[in-house]
């Protein structure tokens, strides 16, 4: 694996991520969707300098008063920064900031995604919005069971139709890869 250290700090395209707070209003009104308070950044673990980036990210999160967090590692070798925040805005800002930390260290390619968890009262329950930091696009993911490998495509398409004018969404459904067993 080659790590490219970017000299000029190329920050992530935050605008499409921040649009989530606007789309959340629509999801709330139309679906009764509530942000669960949990969101996460998922990054592929590496050695060496990567640990400094992890320390920086943790330091940032420790310093954030309104956000608590925990760090988990999964069987695929990914490190999860799982945030608990009262407000979606706070979670979006914090995830954008720690994503930038990894990007500034040159680990853009290591970032898998940002994941936001919602509960939809009017539908079958839990769904996630997954944000790819590579394409700067969101896509919905509604697992019917956490490990079962079955997803509620109908709900996903509905979420897609509801927010497609407000959020930069991934149009190619063949790229809507699930993340099974999200730890929150």
């Amino acid at each position, binding site marked *: *694996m080659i790590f490219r250290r970017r000299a000029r700090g190329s920050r992530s395209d935050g605008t499409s991520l921040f649009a989530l707070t606007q789309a959340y209003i629509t999801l709330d009104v139309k679906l009764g969707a509530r942000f669960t308070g949990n969101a996460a950044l998922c990054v592929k673990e590496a050695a060496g300098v990567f640990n400094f980036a992890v320390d920086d990210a943790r330091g940032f999160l420790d310093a954030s008063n309104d956000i608590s967090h925990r760090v988990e590692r999964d069987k*695929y070798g990914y490190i999860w920064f799982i945030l608990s925040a009262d407000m979606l805005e706070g979670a979006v800002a914090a995830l954008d900031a720690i994503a930038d930390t990894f990007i500034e260290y040159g680990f853009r390619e290591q970032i898998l995604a940002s994941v936001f968890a919602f509960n939809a009262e009017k539908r079958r329950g839990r769904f996630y919005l997954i944000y790819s930091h590579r394409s700067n696009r969101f896509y919905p993911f509604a697992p019917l069971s956490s490990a079962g490998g079955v*997803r509620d*495509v109908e709900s996903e398409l*509905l979420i897609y139709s509801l927010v497609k004018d407000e959020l930069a969404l991934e149009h190619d459904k*063949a790229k*809507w*890869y*699930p993340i099974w067993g999200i730890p929150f």
Partner: protein
Amino acid sequence: MQKYEWKKRDIGITMRLMLCFTVLAILYLIFLSVLAYVGVGMIPLIFLGVFFIIMQYLLSDRIVLWSTGAKIVSEHEYPRLHAIVDRLVARAGLPKPRVAVMHTSVPNAFATGKGRRSSVVAVTTGLMHILNDEELEGVIAHELAHIKNRDVLAITLASIFSTIAWYMMHYGWYGAYGYRSRDQAGGLILAIIIAAITWFVSFLIIRAISRYREYIADRDGALLTGRPSRLASALMKISGTMNRIPSRDLREVESMNAFFIIPALSGDTLSRLFSTHPPVEERIRRLMEMEASMH
């Protein structure tokens, strides 16, 4: 269990129906051309042509059932199917159509019949297998919307007009070249060729009309169930779009992409090249927008 390779054989029933009606139409054309050749006048020919089409309309359910191999089934044989139809016709205020089943793994459905009173709704065993009850209800509501909108009659009327148009052109051609050409052997063949072209163009127009009516039936069927997303997800399963939404974990795919220069998506890209169903995608898009607007 059977393996469902419906993606490749999806067009089976449609092809059989189209072949059946194409052969019928060509037979009419040959017959009418022969009559024209032996000197039967224009007015009797138009009457004959219209007569053929009306006969075809009156016998349409029998022709369709015969060419697709669909069998009328009783409530005892398919209680689940009958229950869905009963629920929907009660809500739509339609007389209950006869219910038929085709024994094939291809997921498909159709409605036919002269009018609201003597209609047939047919589904394949493959459709019942891959769809859940809610999705099946969505599909049947779509078919009932066809019956309610008298789409068979609409298409038949369109055919009558296209037949009349064909005769206008046919006689226009004779008029231009005079009756001398009837004595030449090439005359008849040329007449048939021109007739075939005219018929083909009107066939395209009729297809355009039926596509439009398809959207209408989607909308009306969705209003009947109140849940457009049910038909949308049924269409996704039938068209194979559902299979394009991956179930493989993003992290697995990421690790595959790291090892291979060609992304692990090539299978998807290939299937996209070979299965272009823009109308189905468009239908799904419209239905989901309808669903979104209902929330």
